[in-house]
């Protein structure tokens, strides 16, 4: 690879350091979910007690940065900590004193954080997605087998690739990453494609602010991810799988790596799996700090060692995917649904159909709720039900608004709690469920602060390829800054915003630019954030 291109790739990713190396770098999540849990105060403390953000302190050879969402929203303030010579770790419920100590003493190892858990009510239940993960952690392939592992793969081998596709078609499973595309259509297209090789890619780059379900699934149920990918390989005649895990998920990557190793040694990956003519193996690829790599074509470029710039579609990955070959790409949660579909049948799975979706799905409750975490819900659950399951707001403070779907989603008002969390329910409310984020803001939260952070997020995460997104996200950030200043001409700013938003939605290459204005637009339209409401 030419040096200029290598530099171009390295400088694209936030976590590839091109300046003088640090013994320790602490990345403090100051994104919207952690902002409801004191992230701003921690950043202020670090500035006062350690030094300015992004400036390497010479005595300790350490530095700290503000970070976009680290996907540890249920236990924020989240921190991602890199130490020279050891694997990075994450820190949950971070406290300023502890961080300052770690920064001043890079020789002190960072203790491993506690395992991810679930809110109690779901423990030991027979939820289709969470049942195994919600059991007490007994890692290893034997425990997985004991909990019903490989029943789905065995069934797949019995009914053959066509049978798997038939079950998947009957199940009407749709993607859980945000777009909601029918999964069987992707698999069928790759199964029918001509020529080899072809690939199965698992998208574990979950970076949508407020989303952390895939992290928990990978950490607590890694064998299920591997089994589901193996089934995808079987159904589409792909022998090679990649699982792309964001850099900020070191614990998830470790769990998956370990599970892959054990699967290989037990003959569950490799050649002649379960003594059938099934060859399939998986490689892990790690991200390096780029939200955009959750976009499927950017992710494929990233696996290929390129800048994570989205490709123009068409052609779609099923025709022209990884290394130009037919590729199935699904998110972790989507893949996990394949297991109950094969175990209990696609028709059974589809019985839950409601509002344009089948099968239960995971919601990530964060922000001002008593028991943040992931909650599995059948189609038809309302926003109120989910928030009630998470214990409502602490001290029953009135809900000001809820962000549904992440930074690329929409805010709804505290009086819109009856929205049904299905594609149709969301559509009729003018929102989308996206990646299943439900982030609650009570009346103690400074919403201007939240909106500004969302504007900054998209400006920092735009890949820079196309003009509407590259410059548009900058203009939106500036506009939002002006908007909240005293004496702003807010009506004129909203008119300008609407013009910008329309062009970004219509003319950007990928989903990032197309959705970058939606949440902010909803603060104007739904929360009625305008001249009358801001003093």
């Amino acid at each position: 690879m030419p040096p200029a291109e290598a530099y171009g790739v390295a400088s694209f990713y936030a976590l590839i350091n091109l300046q003088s190396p640090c013994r320790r770098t602490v990345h403090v999540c100051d994104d919207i979910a952690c902002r409801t849990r004191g992230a701003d105060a921690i950043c202020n403390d670090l500035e006062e007690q350690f030094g300015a953000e992004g400036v390497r302190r010479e005595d300790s050879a350490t530095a700290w940065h503000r970070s976009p969402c680290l996907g540890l929203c249920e236990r924020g303030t989240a921190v991602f900590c890199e130490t020279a010579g050891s694997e990075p770790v994450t820190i949950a419920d971070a406290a300023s004193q502890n961080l300052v100590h770690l920064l001043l003493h890079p020789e002190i190892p960072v203790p491993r954080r506690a395992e991810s858990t679930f809110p109690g009510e779901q423990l030991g239940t027979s939820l289709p997605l969470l049942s195994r993960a919600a059991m007490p952690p007994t890692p290893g392939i034997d425990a997985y087998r004991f909990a019903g592992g490989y029943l789905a793969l065995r069934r797949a081998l019995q009914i053959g690739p066509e049978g798997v596709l038939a079950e998947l078609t009957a199940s009407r499973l749709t993607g859980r990453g945000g777009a909601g595309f029918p999964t069987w259509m992707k698999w069928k297209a790759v199964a029918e494609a001509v020529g080899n090789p072809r690939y199965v890619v698992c998208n574990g780059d979950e970076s949508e602010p407020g989303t952390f379900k895939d992290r928990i699934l990978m950490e607590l149920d890694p064998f299920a991810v591997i089994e589901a990918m193996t089934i995808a390989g079987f159904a589409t005649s792909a022998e090679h799988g990649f699982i792309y895990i964001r850099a900020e998920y070191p614990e998830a990557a470790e769990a998956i790596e370990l599970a892959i190793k054990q699967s290989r040694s037990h003959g569950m990956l490799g050649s002649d799996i379960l003594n059938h003519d099934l060859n399939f193996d998986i490689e892990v690829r790690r991200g390096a700090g780029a939200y955009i790599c959750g976009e499927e074509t950017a992710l494929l470029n990233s696996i290929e060692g390129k800048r994570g710039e989205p490709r123009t579609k068409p052609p779609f990955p099923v025709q022209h995917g990884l290394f130009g070959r037919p590729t199935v790409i699904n998110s972790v949660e989507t893949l996990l649904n394949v297991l109950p579909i094969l175990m209990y049948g696609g028709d059974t799975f589809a019985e839950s159909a409601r509002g344009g979706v089948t099968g239960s799905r995971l919601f990530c409750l964060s922000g001002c709720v008593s028991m943040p975490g992931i909650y599995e819900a059948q189609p038809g659950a309302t926003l109120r039900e989910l928030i009630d399951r998470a214990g409502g707001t602490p001290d029953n403070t009135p809900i000001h608004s809820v962000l549904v779907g992440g930074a690329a989603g929409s805010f709804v008002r505290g009086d819109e709690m009856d929205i049904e969390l299905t594609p149709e329910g969301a559509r009729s409310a003018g929102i989308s469920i996206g990646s299943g984020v439900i982030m609650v803001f009570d009346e103690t939260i400074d919403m201007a602060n939240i909106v500004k952070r969302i504007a900054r997020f998209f400006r920092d995460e735009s890949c820079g390829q196309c003009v509407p997104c590259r410059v548009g996200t900058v203009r939106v950030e500036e506009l939002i800054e002006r908007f909240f200043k005293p004496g702003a001409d807010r009506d004129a700013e909203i008119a300008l915003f609407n013009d910008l938003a329309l062009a970004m939605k219509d003319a950007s290459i990928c989903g990032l630019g197309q959705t970058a204005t939606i949440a902010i637009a909803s603060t104007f339209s739904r929360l009625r954030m305008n001249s009358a409401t801001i003093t």
Partner: protein
Amino acid sequence: MTNPISLHGGATLTINGFPVTVSQGSTILDALNAASVETPRLCFLEGLTPVNACRLCVVELEGARTLVPACSRRAEQGMVVLTDSVRVKHARKLVLELLLSSVDLSLLTADIARWIEFYGADLERFGKKAARAETNHDACRAGSHEALKPGEIGSVATPVKIDNDLFVRDYSKCILCYRCVEACGADAQNTFAIAVAGRGFEARISTEFVIPLNESACVFCGNCIGVCPTGALMPKSEFDMREVGNWCEEKQAVTRTVCPYCGVGCNLELTVQDDRIVKASSPRDHDITNGNLCIKGRFGWEYVNSTPERRGSGEKE
């Protein structure tokens, strides 16, 4: 459509209500050209792989959720395309406004000036551009940016890079069309001295670790200059004359000739002002060079300006 299946694997599209037939492998832009519909575009250049980054050529395609780039989207049988809808005009206007608000487009071509007028782009829609800032984009870390200065809007203004005698790089004029990277890379020169570095608004064209060109893989063919649409890349000769106000297009004539150096026979276009060569380029429509030259053809003409007769006449002056 009266012609649902076209002959020879081509495609018949409806463009603004009129049918247009193009051959297989054509893009929507080819169809628009065939229909004589003018399509504004900045990053597209015949002969380079379309990157559809500027989004100025977007059109409305029936059935598509968003607008689509005409330059890269393959024409398909039965496509219904609009180029003058409200959505298309809005997007093109905003793209022009976003570019004008952030990039120095002072060397506008007549085309860009016409588009600005046609789409009614307002050059100061988002506020006043900062005076030439000395921001060092090369030092930016992906995913972070400097805090905004009150009352200013962000621009790509950055000091001109003058690190050799042959050409300068003024990235304040760069719209990130990727053309220079493609021309330096697999589309023409296969030298790969430059690439897009950084991310987002801080993305920029760079050598590895921002090293000067003469320490990089650059072979000074100047083919990047040949494809640059905004004058961000410019021969030093032209840059120096512009700096002192001597660059005068009214006094210039362009003469086509053959490069005298080797046996390939590249065509040269010599720009001559006041009886002296001030710039050499190559016609893109020439089937040997396709606009490309080597260092000698592009920069090795100074001797013509300094033949004994000329030196003599110079001394007389």
